[in-house]
């Protein structure tokens, strides 16, 4: 299995187990180390106390000979090869406990007064041993102090036994802990991933048609995802409905002018009148086709769309419009907020802005002002576009009629009302609104396009 396609459960479980093994391994090692250190320390203490016992029970004769206690501090000193040995060196004294007889042990070192040394583990012919040595100077009445070095040696059999017991207990419990932790972890994992499984199930139900939309009670981390899925489903549904309506709209709207023409043909009138009727209806049909075509070409609201910077589109359009309206010397000013973005199809933005700007250029005397502003939103920022001109402005009656389908604000200016009806519809597709008023700064018309933020 490739790492990339590994399931979430496997990923979490694998990484948790790896972390757990590393953690428990290190813990076990550290505990073992600590236990060993303290066991060795305890052994040193024990060996030292044996030396003290020998010291307290010993004496030195007038001749400078060491007299050791009759009873050994531990019976093991008397049993040959028992694992516990003692020796004293110094001056002409050479003594070994009966347990050490015949063994090759490192018991010849002489230490200075008050010097103490603990060495181990040390390899000898009788195995690994630990050696505690202590140098003293025995006060002899009327004489030089007698230098003596006491050695007590113990092999590691006892320590090994202790360590083995400790190790066994330690690993048994660590393993139990590991199993428990993994079990809890896997259960928690299953529990955490349950909402994802639910999304999967619910999406499958939506596909089958037994569910409309995803519910609203998902954990907060998933809510952004489920909202996006819902938006996506919504917009897809809207698109389907729109497509269905468009064909119907086109066919129906063409029927009226066709009926007028047929009526005029069936009821003989003067040829000049007939010509007028046909010309008028042809113009209407032309408008209808242009309108429906422009609608068919638009993408409409989409849930997932890259932001389109308004400035780029605006510059291209104004460049073109200045060319087309070259003789009128109209100055188009920009007041663009740098973060103003349109979330949707670039062509749609061009269509919206193109129609509104073209309108402004047609009506302006000298100046057109385009300003944009972004509206803060949690999931996606909104956008406000304002196009003003210094033309004659719009009276209240026209303003109302302006946005109705195909109704023209002024018959003399080609495509005026149609363009705005297209814009209004497009903006609605993006769930925005088109507001028409009179400009307070320039005195002409003011078109406000508002696309709401997504929260």
């Amino acid at each position: 299995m490739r790492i990339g396609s590994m399931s979430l459960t496997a990923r979490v479980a694998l990484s948790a187990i790896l972390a757990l093994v590393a953690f428990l391994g290190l813990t076990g090692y550290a505990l073992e180390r600590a236990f060993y250190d303290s066991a060795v320390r305890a052994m040193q203490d024990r060996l030292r106390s044996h030396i003290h016992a020998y010291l307290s029970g010993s004496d030195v004769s007038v001749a400078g000979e060491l007299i050791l206690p009759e009873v050994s501090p531990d019976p093991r000193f008397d049993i040959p090869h028992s694992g516990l040995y003692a020796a004293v060196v110094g001056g002409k004294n050479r003594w070994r406990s009966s347990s050490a007889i015949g063994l090759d042990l490192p018991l010849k070192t002489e230490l200075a007064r008050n010097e103490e040394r603990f060495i181990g583990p040390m390899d000898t012919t009788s195995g690994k041993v630990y050696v505690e040595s202590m140098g003293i100077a025995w006060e002899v009445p009327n004489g030089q102090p007698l230098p003596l070095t006491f050695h007590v040696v113990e092999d590691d059999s006892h320590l090994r036994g202790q360590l083995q017991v400790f190790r066994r207990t330690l690993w048994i419990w660590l393993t139990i802990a590991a199993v428990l932790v993994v079990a809890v972890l896997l259960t928690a994992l299953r529990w955490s991933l349950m909402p994802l499984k639910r999304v999967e199930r619910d999406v499958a139900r939506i596909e089958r048609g037994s569910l409309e939309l995803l519910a609203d009670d998902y954990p907060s981390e998933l809510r952004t995802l489920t909202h996006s899925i819902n938006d996506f489903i919504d917009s897809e549904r809207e698109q389907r409905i729109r497509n269905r309506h468009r064909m119907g709209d086109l066919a129906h709207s063409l029927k009226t002018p066709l009926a007028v023409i047929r009526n005029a043909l069936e009821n003989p009138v003067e040829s000049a009148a007939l010509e007028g009727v046909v010309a008028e209806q042809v113009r209407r049909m032309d408008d209808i086709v242009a309108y429906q075509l422009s609608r068919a070409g638009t993408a409409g609201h989409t849930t997932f769309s890259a932001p389109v910077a308004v400035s780029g589109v605006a510059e291209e359009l104004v460049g073109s419009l200045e060319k087309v309206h070259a003789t009128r010397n109209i100055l188009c000013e920009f007041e663009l907020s740098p973060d103003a973005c349109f979330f949707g199809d670039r062509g749609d933005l061009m269509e919206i802005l193109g129609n509104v700007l073209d309108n402004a250029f047609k009506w302006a005397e000298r100046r057109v002002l385009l300003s944009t502003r972004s509206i803060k939103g949690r999931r996606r920022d909104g956008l406000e576009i304002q196009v003003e001109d210094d033309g004659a402005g719009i009276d209240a009656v026209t303003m109302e009629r302006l946005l109705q389908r195909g109704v023209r604000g002024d018959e003399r200016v080609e495509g005026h009302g149609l363009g705005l009806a297209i814009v209004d519809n497009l903006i609605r597709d993006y769930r925005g609104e088109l507001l028409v008023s009179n400009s307070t700064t320039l005195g002409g018309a003011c078109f406000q396009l508002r696309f709401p933020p997504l929260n």
Partner: protein
Amino acid sequence: MRILLVEDEAPLRETLAARLRREGYAVDAAADGEEGLYLGREVPFDVAIIDLGLPKMSGMELITTLREEGARYPVLILTARTSWQDKVEGLKTGADDYLVKPFHVEELLARLNALVRRATGWSKPVLECGPMVLDTTAQTVTVNAKAIDLTSYEYKVLEYLMLHAGELVSKADLTEHIYQQDFDRDSNVLEVFIGRLRRKLDPDGEIKPIETVRGRGYRFAIPRSE
């Protein structure tokens, strides 16, 4: 005015060419992009009408190529596409105006008129040079507010000279821009027109609007009032 018309749809091309000729344009019509390119290279046009959807070479390519090769005359594009994206692209390639099909011929004529004026540096449709006023929309001429009755060819010669007021216009320029391809280019005919124009515009020889630059051509001598 000499006009290049590139349109693949035969009925539209023919009716449009006929109408433009009636309006006094010398029309060279092409049915596809390659023919359009050939004509566009060879003939010094005053304005071009180019349809965007053309066989052999698209309208956009045709305009780009002509512009790259130095053609300076204004271009009006005809398109069935209504989207702003298409309009902007067309204008960016070097066209100067667009018209969406279907259109009213009057609209087309007004746009052509404006394009030609703009290209020669006139911003208003009424050309004024001192006492002489030529209305390109109504196709009327007045001298000191008195209407002058001109024939169609006389008007065209005067319009061309006034549009290029102050510039030297050779006889070849005049014949090329005013006559159809197959017209008999006898320069005597032109001299006759100029002579008649002078008599009609300036019967008393006071304002001398058209001067002859010997051996090279003519110049409209009254400076522009605009």
